């Protein structure tokens, strides 16, 4: 009489009702009405230089304006220590808003207007007069490529390229077949639908209740406490719902600083919602240049891999990503040289954006593999499988598991890959050429140190608390599943609380580690809770479970049941009565296992297949079909898991066809800083997306066997689209996005430049 398993079954989101009725509260939804002050930021018009004069007189004269903060009058209470660094911050010094008169990128905040209404603040901000002394700036990555450098200090959490193996140069020299090409990916902006915002509520006792758009409330809390010198009990950060972030909320951004500064100085509650245009002043995926060289024997065996990437960063921080390592992680070769360098520009520091690094490197490497397959005259899937690695050749470790081949097979079958003609331009319908392309992808499966608390009462109501965030990732739902299954409860008896710094500590949610880490911590807490409950049940006089061990019982429908003799059971109520406590609280922990990590590396893998239809004359591309086959360990909730991968594929299509932040290098400024002109896929751009999960047993990565799904969907997709466009048209586009002009070859390629 086993109860129905919940883990692994498709479950509707537990926060679904709140989201479809408009009751889920995001940062800006808190504190409406007249009490709260509204703030608006004025951003710099120049890229580099200093503010010579800033005049706020007219802004201050607007009725309803409470204060205008600039570097000249900002409160000294703010403690701008240069030692503060956030968890995921790269080497360097984080931006210090309104610190002094110097400007280090176009869009840096220069003033904050605080007023009784939002419209008043926005209006008054336009009355602030600023005179600048501009210095020459440089925002052009391609121009600065010759000045690239290897970052002196590595960013924690990012593996720099490994030492070269053998000599890629000489192996390439003597390779019977080789392919060398350059690939360029435009800068992208995260543009979550919810704009970055902070609502600071100043409570009667002077404590701050902060709602911040962040991927982990502790990051905001630590920032505020350390930057403003506040003790921990003075600050609570509560952000139950985040309207997407995709990495843009991994670090606290300037709106948090400014809102808290204003609230403290004015002793009022303050709401600061950035504009859509200002989303382009906080974070982006760096424009990245790649060169890939592959050498192979005539049978397709790779003899050499060289992959070099150069990414852009700001002048004040060395933002780093893992761009090139994936190539050797996926493909084996005796001679390998991987290099990653940076170029400093007068721009804001780039920030991790969905699968940071991976789709950039994958676009280059997976395009290159396709080009090599063409030269070799072999099927691109066959070439990939032929060179597929069995171990992690980058770190010299075993894989905890790698069912890429199984995924690939399922994906190829679903897609119908074997019907693909080898030659490009072989399929057409009317005036559209049809092409099929594929790519592989990989992403790290990580565990982070996580804590969780689970509370159960005699009525079987369970509350799970973790300070992590649900960014749309489905965390609320999977944690409810885990607790409900562990405790033998139905889902509706479990309440999950997230995004509150009063809850047990969790890192920012990102890198696809939340399901594995938070899930394992909840699982651990439940195990402890069960042990306590069993103990309580055993104190009952004549307890039928008196000699039972924890492994011998199961929790089912609010009872503790001895598995070998289900007639022997104690109800939760009886156990609680016996224990004499109205509720039991248990804390759980989870974190990476050091020993496992030494020997193993753990990744999710995918094979993505794409059909593109390209108008032969006009170059309009339509991605009409995609199959993403994923091996990612245990799937907790196939419904939300599928959505995560679908979302990743949509991102990949956007990266391939639409997304591009365009900079005016004369002004040193992004110019299409809005979402009418920075294009993300619209509904009409997205057709069928099929997701397949290959079975993958992995008990080494995390106690739950989970690997995480937030990033893997995007990784290979852009490359697969490029490969499909090539297969359709015979034209190889090595620069993203592949806008109509590039597909038609009407815009000269930059990648020939070096």
């Amino acid at each position, binding site marked *: 009489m086993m109860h129905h398993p919940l883990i692994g079954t498709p479950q509707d989101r537990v926060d679904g009702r709140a989201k479809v009725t408009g009751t889920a509260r995001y940062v800006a939804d808190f504190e409406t009405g007249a009490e709260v002050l509204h703030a608006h930021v004025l951003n710099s018009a120049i890229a580099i230089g200093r503010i010579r004069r800033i005049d706020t007189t007219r802004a201050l004269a607007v009725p309803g304006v409470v204060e205008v903060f600039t570097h000249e009058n900002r409160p000294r209470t703010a403690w701008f220590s240069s030692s503060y660094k956030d968890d995921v911050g790269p080497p360097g010094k984080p931006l210090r808003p309104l610190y002094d008169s110097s400007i280090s990128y176009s869009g840096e905040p220069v003033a904050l207007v605080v007023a009784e209404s939002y419209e008043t603040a926005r*209006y008054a901000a336009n009355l602030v007069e600023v005179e600048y002394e501009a210095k020459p700036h440089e925002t052009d990555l391609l121009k600065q490529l010759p000045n690239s450098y290897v970052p002196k200090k590595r960013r924690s959490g990012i593996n720099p390229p490994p030492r070269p193996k053998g000599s890629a140069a000489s192996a390439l020299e003597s390779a019977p077949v080789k392919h060398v090409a350059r690939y360029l990916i435009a800068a992208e902006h995260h543009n979550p639908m919810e704009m970055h915002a902070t609502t600071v509520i100043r409570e009667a006792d002077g404590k701050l209740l902060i709602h911040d758009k962040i991927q982990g409330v502790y990051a905001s809390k630590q920032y505020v406490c350390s930057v403003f010198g506040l003790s921990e009990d003075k600050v609570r950060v509560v952000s139950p719902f985040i309207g997407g972030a995709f990495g843009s909320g991994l670090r606290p951004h300037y709106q948090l600083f400014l809102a808290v500064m204003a609230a403290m100085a004015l002793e009022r509650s303050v709401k600061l919602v950035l504009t859509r245009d200002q989303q382009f002043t906080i974070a982006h995926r760096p424009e990245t240049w790649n060169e890939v060289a592959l050498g192979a024997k005539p049978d397709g065996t790779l003899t050499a891999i060289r992959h070099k990437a150069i990414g852009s960063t700001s002048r004040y921080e060395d933002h780093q990503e893992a761009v090139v390592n994936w190539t050797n992680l996926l493909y084996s070769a005796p001679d390998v040289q991987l290099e990653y360098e940076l170029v400093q520009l007068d721009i804001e520091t780039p920030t991790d954006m969905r699968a940071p690094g991976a789709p950039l490197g994958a676009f280059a490497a997976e395009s290159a593999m396709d080009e090599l397959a063409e030269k070799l005259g072999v099927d691109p899937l066959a070439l990939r499988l032929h060179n597929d690695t069995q171990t992690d050749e980058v770190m010299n470790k075993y894989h905890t598991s790698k069912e890429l081949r199984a995924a690939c097979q399922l994906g190829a079958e679903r897609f119908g890959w074997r019907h693909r003609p080898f030659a490009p331009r072989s399929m057409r319908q009317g005036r559209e050429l049809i092409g099929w392309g594929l790519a592989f992808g990989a992403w790290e499966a990580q565990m982070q140190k996580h804590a969780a608390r689970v509370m159960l009462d005699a009525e079987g109501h369970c509350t799970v608390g973790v300070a992590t965030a649900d960014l749309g990732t489905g965390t609320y739902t999977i944690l409810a599943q885990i607790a409900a299954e562990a405790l033998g409860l139905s889902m509706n008896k479990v309440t999950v609380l997230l995004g509150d710094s009063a809850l047990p500590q969790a890192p920012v949610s990102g890198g696809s580690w939340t399901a594995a880490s938070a899930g394992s911590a909840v699982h651990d807490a439940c195990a402890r809770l069960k042990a306590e409950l069993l103990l309580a049940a055993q104190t009952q006089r004549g307890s039928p479970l008196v000699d039972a061990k924890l492994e011998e019982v199961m929790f089912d429908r609010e009872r503790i049941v001895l598995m070998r003799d289900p007639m022997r059971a104690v109800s939760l109520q009886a156990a609680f009565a016996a224990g004499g406590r109205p509720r039991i609280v248990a804390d759980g922990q989870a974190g990476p296992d050091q020993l496992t990590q030494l020997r193993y590396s753990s990744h999710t893998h995918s094979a993505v297949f794409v059909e593109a239809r390209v108008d032969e004359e006009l170059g309009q591309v*339509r991605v009409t079909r995609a199959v993403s086959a994923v091996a990612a360990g245990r799937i907790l909730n196939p419904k939300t898991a599928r959505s995560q991968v679908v979302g990743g594929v949509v991102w990949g299509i956007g990266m391939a066809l639409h997304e591009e932040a*365009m900079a005016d290098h004369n002004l040193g*400024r992004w*110019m299409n*800083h809005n979402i009418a002109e920075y294009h993300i896929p*619209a509904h*009409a751009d997205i057709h069928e997306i099929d997701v397949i999960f290959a079975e993958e047993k992995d008990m080494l990565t995390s106690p739950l066997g989970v690997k995480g799904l937030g990033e893997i969907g995007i990784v290979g997709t852009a490359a697969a689209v490029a490969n499909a466009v090539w297969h359709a048209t015979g034209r190889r586009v090595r620069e993203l996005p592949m806008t*109509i002009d590039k597909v038609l070859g*009407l815009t000269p390629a930059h990648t020939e430049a070096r």
Partner: protein
Amino acid sequence: MRPFHYERPRALEEAIAGKTEASRFLGGGTNLIDLMKYDVERPASLLDLNRLEGLREVERDREGTLRIGALVSNADAAAHPLVREHHPLLADAILAGATPQLRNMATMGGNLLQRTRCYYFYDRLTPCNKREPGTGCPAKEGVNRIHAILGTSEHCIATHPSDMCVALAALEAVVVVRGPSGERRIRTEDFHRLPGDAPERDTTLDAREVVTAIEIPARLYGRHHTYLKLRDRLSYAFALVSVAVTMEMQEGRVSRLRVALGGVAHKPWRVPEAEALLEGRGPEEARFGAVADRLLQGARGYGHNDFKIGLARLAIARALHQAAAATPQSHVAKRIA
């Protein structure tokens, strides 16, 4: 937004009398409110036209001229049976633009008068001759993917972003306007202007005139028409290049051809000499290239938008093909016919 005085005139005369250089008529507001939020438009007062009577009709007179009131929403115009039956080109062009929500708000008059989407024009922290005469035109050497290739001046290379207006140009529509001195009819061609040395002026409309209607003469192009729009995503994006065509046929010959281009100039672009190249002949594909070349004569790119010349050439040929084959482009099915 700057503070403004909000007024709701009860009659057209009142609206006209109240209009000054510093005030703006409010139609759907989808462009005006947008620009006010960006501090680009700073009207001292808004004259809300939405309650006015008599500007919401769609009618057809005995000569077959279709008259659409200035306050008819873009959505209603595109869905109106008279429009669908007699000028499907107009419906198609409207539906190729913006979104259902925006089209529900946007009015015919407002659509005609919407301003450029030039990035610099929208960004008050950059120079722009159109926004602030005399400050310069950074687009020429800057980011100009969406900019003009025809009819530009050293002062401005912006485009007019409307889809609807491109169809109106091909339909030889007339804009009916009313001012203090009475009614005027302006051919669409003459309604929008080239930037020249006064890029701050988009149209030939006088500051005190209001658009009351759009009139479209009867044309018998049947299914020989198309609105082909190429853009950076398949919906909810402005045209990189668009082509509106009506091709009237008589006994297998083109009796009248009208071609207008969008996304390439400060106004919908027409070249009668180009149209004449096909008139009186069969719609021979071989000649489409010549028509395109004539339309694009004098075109020049500014860097990012160089591709538009080649793209427009291809698009014109294809649109002519669609019109000749009576297979107008669907805005729903994204495959290009």
